[in-house]
């Protein structure tokens, strides 16, 4: 488990990074926290010629709130995301989600950019990006562009990032008032990748759900939004019968794989259980009264 030979360059600006990434004579990849890339190298599942270390780019480390948008630099470490007061105030669902990412030692190094670009189907932050309608800013390639989270994740470990591109930041539009949230995850052990995870955002006005978002992870090639179930919730109250119907809809819309840790059926079962829990939490958090 030793990596193959590679060159290593530590850059200090986005331009430097994208210049090396754009040079097609050598295969270069970005290294951020290294928590997913290094295992890939050690297992010899990847053999890039150059590692471009972006941890010295100060511009990628900011986390700011401006004009109803929170923008998170790609080099923001999980530990800083999890302890950020801005995040805790506006997106407590992220604060909770981060506690489920691995253990502290890994959270100290892993970054939001690395997690999104690695795009593990069971990872928490890609699911958060979908849930919170994130916009991802990339530099390099044919020029800077913005990608909506729903277009970013293409399949397991595959994203819309093109050769020569670098993820620079992630923007999250603030949520309206009367928003509640829920997050639940089941993993075999604390810190393991999710067998199944569900998160939800509900906005409740006058006892009725005006906006509903549900995202799931660990049960498909990419994290997914559950559009059908969301539509069922909009304009409704939440009661037992309706909750059951929503959960069943979600269960019928996913087709999880069977692997070593869990069968497809068990994962589907879990999604049902967790959906009910997060919707109740989100509904109550938004001031709704569950009947």
């Amino acid at each position, binding site marked *: *488990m*030793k990596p193959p030979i590679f060159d290593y360059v530590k850059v200090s600006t986005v331009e430097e990074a994208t210049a090396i990434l754009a040079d097609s004579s050598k295969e270069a990849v970005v290294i951020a926290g290294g928590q997913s890339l290094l295992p890939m190298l050690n297992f*010899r599942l990847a053999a890039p010629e150059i590692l471009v270390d972006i941890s010295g780019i100060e511009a990628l480390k900011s986390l700011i709130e401006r004009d109803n948008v929170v923008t998170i630099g790609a080099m923001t470490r999980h530990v800083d995301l999890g302890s950020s007061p801005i995040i805790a105030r506006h997106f407590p669902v992220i604060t909770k989600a981060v506690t489920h990412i691995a253990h502290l030692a890994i959270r100290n190094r892993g970054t939001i950019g690395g997690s999104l670009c690695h795009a593990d189907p069971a990872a928490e932050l890609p699911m958060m990006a979908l849930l919170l309608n994130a916009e991802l800013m990339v530099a390099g390639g044919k020029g800077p562009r913005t990608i909506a989270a729903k277009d970013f994740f293409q399949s397991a470990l595959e994203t819309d990032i093109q050769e020569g591109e670098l993820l620079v930041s992630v923007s999250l539009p603030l949520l309206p008032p009367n928003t509640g949230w829920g997050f639940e995850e*089941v993993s075999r*052990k*604390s810190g*393991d990748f999710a067998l199944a995870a569900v998160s939800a955002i509900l906005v409740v006005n006058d006892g009725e759900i005006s906006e509903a978002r549900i995202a799931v992870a660990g049960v498909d090639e990419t994290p997914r939004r559950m559009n059908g179930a969301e539509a069922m919730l909009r304009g409704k109250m939440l009661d037992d019968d309706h909750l059951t119907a929503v959960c069943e809809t979600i269960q019928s819309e996913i087709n999880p794989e069977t692997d070593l*840790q869990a069968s497809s059926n068990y994962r589907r079962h879990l999604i049902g*259980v967790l959906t009910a829990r997060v919707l109740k939490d989100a509904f109550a958090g938004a001031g709704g009264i569950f009947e």
Partner: protein
Amino acid sequence: MDINTRPKIIGARVQRREDPRLLTGNGAFVDDRQVPGMLHLAFRRSDFGHAKILKIDTEEAASMPGIIGIYTAETLNEITKPVIAFSNMKDYQATPIRALAQDVVRYVGEPVVVVVAENRYLAEDALNEIFIDYEPLENVVDPEYAASGDAVLVHEDLKSNILVAREFERGEVDEAMSSAAIRVKGRFRSRRKTAVAMETRSYLAEFEKSSQSLTLHSSTQIPGIIRDALVDILDIPGHRLRVVAPDVGGGFGGKASLYPEEIVVTALSKLLKRSVKWTSDRMEDLMSTSQAFDEIIDAELGLDSEGNLLALSADVLGDVGAYSIYPWTAALEPIQVVSFMPGPYRLANYRGKVRGVATNKPPTGPYRGVGRPASTFVMERLMDMAAGKLGMDPAELRLKNFVVGDEFPYRIGSGIVWDKSEFSECLNKATEKLDYETLREKQRIARSQGRLMGIGIASYAELTGIGSRISAAPGMPINTGTETARIRVDSSGSVIAYFGVASHGQSLETTLAQVVAEEMGVKVEDVEVVLGDSAVMAHSTGTYASRSAVLAGGAGTLAARAVREKIVEAASLLFEVPAEEIDVYDGLIHVSGTNRKMDLRELARAVYSEMGRFTKEVRENLDLEATKLYDPYFGTTTSASHIAVVDIDPETFKVKIEQYVVSEDCGRMINPLVVDGQVHGGVAQGIGAALYEEVIHDENGQVVTASLVDYLVPSSCEVPTIDVLHADTRSPSTIGGFRGMGEGGTIGAPAAIANAVADALAPFGIEINEIPISPERLYRLIEKARNSEKD
């Protein structure tokens, strides 16, 4: 000070002397050792479960940068003899172990080719350019199929895949069983597990050019056995091969066998006259370190209507993997499963049947608890199933059947004899600690609220500190029953205690120093302990089978007493008083009732260095050194009761251990801190066996749990607070009254947790017959039960 009021060192909570260096990163493990010019190895391992090797092409790889040489069976097996794990058991079939796979590969991960290079990176680069042609053979993966006679032979030249078989009966089992008012039975499955020591296996053979001799630094539990085996394999005089086990980061049995890589490292060092190192990576560790616990057990227990045990029968099929491991043999685990099945209970009729069957999987070997985790799981499940049928509380059923008082020594159906141990007291203490009655009441309330709360008890007894009368592995002709200690006060007055045993986390440097200090009358910090070096003892084996506190502690006691006598003799001559008036305490030698005293340094100087202090006749017979061997002959009994309280999420089926109590009798404690630490670690591993850990091979013999993403080891988050209670009754059978206790935690925990989970699921009528109890397995059991309820 009055002798009786002096603070005792044995039994004191002495801080581990290992901790400062280990906790500050200053330990010296094999891989820390750097020798100028040393070479590094990488192994190309079989990716087939079972195949003939047709052709190996290493030409391309050999020409790569930094490559010193590439070796296969053809070149390396020429210079190494096969090793055979002998056994005098009837019908045992041995399987020779070679340095590298010869002609046939028998498990995925078996070493086939070794690359020698300037560093490990270059060695691994070359692995990819080695081309091997295989002719696949039938993979024998399922143990029942392997045993059936329809399967291909894992070893062509053997009669069958059954490497070992035994059957015995005591009493009239059929008769007693058919008269039993209550009968419970089941087919139980304990899944394959591996040790996952934090330090992976690592070997460094240092070649000493001046003397043409080799020192193998090995992360082994058994430096003595390794040395003796390598002397034969390499045909090298023993004085030119020394095996040292430095700091070793956990063993759990996984480092208690001889490995092909150990042979290869040493053979290449001898051949190339260079120092050679290999350190396993985690992937190699998960596919090549010995595995364990892989058993299918059909068992039945019969009781009368009052709950008295009448008869037990057990039929064990152990999947022992591809080779009979050295030195323990394939008999080690399966035989112990049947041997320990009757547990701490009064039971007249027992029939045991066992087969160990070869399959295309890594060899199994010792693992903390050897056989007893599985036998305890089965017996204790049966006890709970019986309690359920009788409508009796599980604690009461156990108390009713424990061997007690003057029934000791008690011979169980397999022939093992329990010396006196506090079976009942241990359980009573545990139930008191938990306030068992109240706990059951809480459970009734929890159930009425739809919660799945369960309470599980496991009681067991085991043999520890085994002496020369019995082999640590059934039928194995190697003596594992003696240990030697040599203690010396040198000319500077320092006390150095040499032991043949090795330490890999048991705190033996601390506990053996305590024993020696107390027996000699010196301070703990004045005793230096030397362990794990084949050069310091004429013979030794190592640390395994919960033996070292008993055997090395016993030998250390005898040697310390002998040196103390010599100190007293010398002092009585120097002070010119009778020996009875000399007292040695805290490193000072006093004339009792006076203020005359000297310290060890002064005494040593007088004995060794100062002229004219003694007559010639006295001096010729006076040294401050003694070597003593200890043989506990039979060994002793250790026992415990564990109680686990679990809560199962009724929707996700996650099991949470809410409370855990261990109440154990390990005899006289040398150091309660160390005892508790051993219990904690053992229980953590038992939790792994109960809920998480499982080595999985697919139908082609491919290991699918090749990283710690898939092979799940409990972390501190999965291990609850564990209360440990002690009976602290001296063993009647050992010097010092010590009983071995390093393995016990792992023996009790799988059973206690399985019983707790079954108890929690009692409303569904679900029994737990298989470990680990993964949420997937629970999901299926519960779904099945819910569906059949609906029907």
